[in-house]
């Protein structure tokens, strides 16, 4: 019965996303959507995936990660280089196939870095993950600023701090990647969202997902139950890194020029804001917050300069509100009612 309930919830979630996609597609093809908003569709998909995946780390496994943009940038640049190489070496011209393969490349590289960071850090207790991921995001950006990649025939050349390499330059140090094939499309972004939802929801409802949440709730008790806490925290962290890498790949292949400076600390914080505003651990909240906060600055272009300021204020207000006993008891009551209604429904179904 329990399994069924979560399956139904999942199907409803996919349904809502599919309906939203159909509405957006209809608006695009009927011309009801403004040009600037149309240009925002792929970034919205990217940020939704970023927010859901970060929520897996922050909300479900309870670790603070401040370098999610780092995984995004690894995904973006490895996908850009991967796409160019795949086209040159294997002669893949089909754009959708190329995009999907590049996204797999981006996800794989981000996942490798996720493992490298997770192995030392997730063994420790405390806020070390926040410290290390914060540094990781900055280090990756600075390293990418010094990296040069070029393609000569089907051979890749790499150099560090030395722009004179043979062939066509793919990644030009601080100037980033230029003349990127813009192969990212909204439908692929939509499929990536569905894929992300599928992965995250199935993980959360699985035995491993419960182990991840138990480790979050009480590490010592979880260990005493025979749960290998490090392993399950790694599982959440690496899954999130792979998804962020795939989102980054989609993002990178959506613009003709991409520089590492696009994936600054601000971007990590922006994604964290989506997660916090949407409610930590609440996947739908992340989706809604990511959509609204990506669209709003476009609509309120005149206030774009104040965006970070407004975010800061909103964050503080949210924190104040969630610590206010009155508002908390109000929420508790709402959640409680939801829960008891659920059990009643469950009882009726039996």
């Amino acid at each position, binding site marked *: 019965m329990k399994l069924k309930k979560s399956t139904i919830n999942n199907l409803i979630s996919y349904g809502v996303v599919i309906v939203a996609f159909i509405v957006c597609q209809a608006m695009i093809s009927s011309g009801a959507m403004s040009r600037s908003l149309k240009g925002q569709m792929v970034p919205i998909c990217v940020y939704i995936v970023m927010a859901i995946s970060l929520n897996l780390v922050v909300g479900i496994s309870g670790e603070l990660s401040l370098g999610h943009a780092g995984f995004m940038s690894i995904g973006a640049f490895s996908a850009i280089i991967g796409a160019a190489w795949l086209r040159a070496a294997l002669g893949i011209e089909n754009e959708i196939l190329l995009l999907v393969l590049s996204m797999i490349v981006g996800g794989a590289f981000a996942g490798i870095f996720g493992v490298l960071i997770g192995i030392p850090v997730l063994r420790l207790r405390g806020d070390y993950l926040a410290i290390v991921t914060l540094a990781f995001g900055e280090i990756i950006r600075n390293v990418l600023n010094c990296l040069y990649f070029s393609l000569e025939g089907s051979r890749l050349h790499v150099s560090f701090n030395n722009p004179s390499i043979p062939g066509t330059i793919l990644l030009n140090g601080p100037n980033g990647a230029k003349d990127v094939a813009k192969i990212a499309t909204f439908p692929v972004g939509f499929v990536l969202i569905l894929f992300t939802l599928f992965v995250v929801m199935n993980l959360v409802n699985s035995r491993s997902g*419960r182990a991840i949440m138990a480790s979050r709730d009480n590490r010592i008790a979880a260990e*005493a*139950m*025979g749960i290998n806490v490090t392993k399950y925290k790694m599982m959440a962290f690496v899954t999130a890194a792979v998804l962020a890498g795939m989102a980054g790949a989609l993002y990178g292949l959506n613009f003709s020029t991409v520089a590492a400076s696009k994936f600054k600390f601000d971007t990590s914080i922006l994604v964290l804001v989506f997660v916090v505003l949407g409610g930590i651990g609440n996947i739908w909240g992340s989706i809604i917050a990511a959509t609204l906060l990506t669209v709003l600055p476009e609509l309120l272009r005149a206030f774009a300069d104040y965006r970070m300021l407004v975010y800061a204020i909103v964050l503080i207000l949210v924190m104040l509100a969630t610590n206010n006993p009155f508002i908390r008891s109000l929420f508790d009551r709402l959640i409680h009612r939801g829960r008891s209604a659920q059990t009643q429904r469950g009882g009726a179904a039996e």
Partner: protein
Amino acid sequence: MSETRAKSLLKVDDIHVYYGSIHAIKGISFEVNEGEIVTLIGANGAGKSTTLNTVSGLLRPRSGLISFEGKSIVGIGASKVVGLGMALCPEGRRVFQQMTVRENLEMGGFSRPGEEIPQSLENVFTRFPRLKEREKQVAGTLSGGEQQMLAMGRALMSKPKLLMLDEPSMGLAPILVEQIFDIIKELHASGTTILLVEQNAQMALSVADRAYVLGTGKITISGPAEAVLADDRVRAAYLGG
């Protein structure tokens, strides 16, 4: 029954445990035989919980041997220790606050194959009918006594050969303490071996077969529970004269 050549289940030999540079456990040795209740008593900070956490693999001894059913378990990690048949019911209960009673119990059976869980759940609910009533309630909203029952039930879900209880009476009203000790006696009667760490020396000694008294990282007195209970030093230090 425990005196007659019982099989040794857990053997701890001269372990030393450090927190950084602090020498917390200075060479403790003890043994738990099959079917016994053994208690470790002692004042605050004597190292009782540290000893239990070391045995269960949450902490690693710097030196010394720990063996369970004749096999060394030093350094294999808490998650593997459970699979061998030792369950820790940690100090301060530590239930998963945001999960329901049922989910908590299911987590307790994490190390067991999934098809065993329904039967184990049934056994725990039979022993703790109160938990059955609260099955779908979120664990954080349970009373202290109920949380203690939940923590014990959760530990039993792994079908342990040795159940380690860390301060089960902590923070409970006297009537609840008696209930918890009644449950401990019942568990013992149904064949579970128990290693009990307690500050409430009177209660612990009244149910135990043997006892070890810890004082700042060392065992100072040991022997059958009645003998320890009668010991003048124990009476003076832990039982209020």
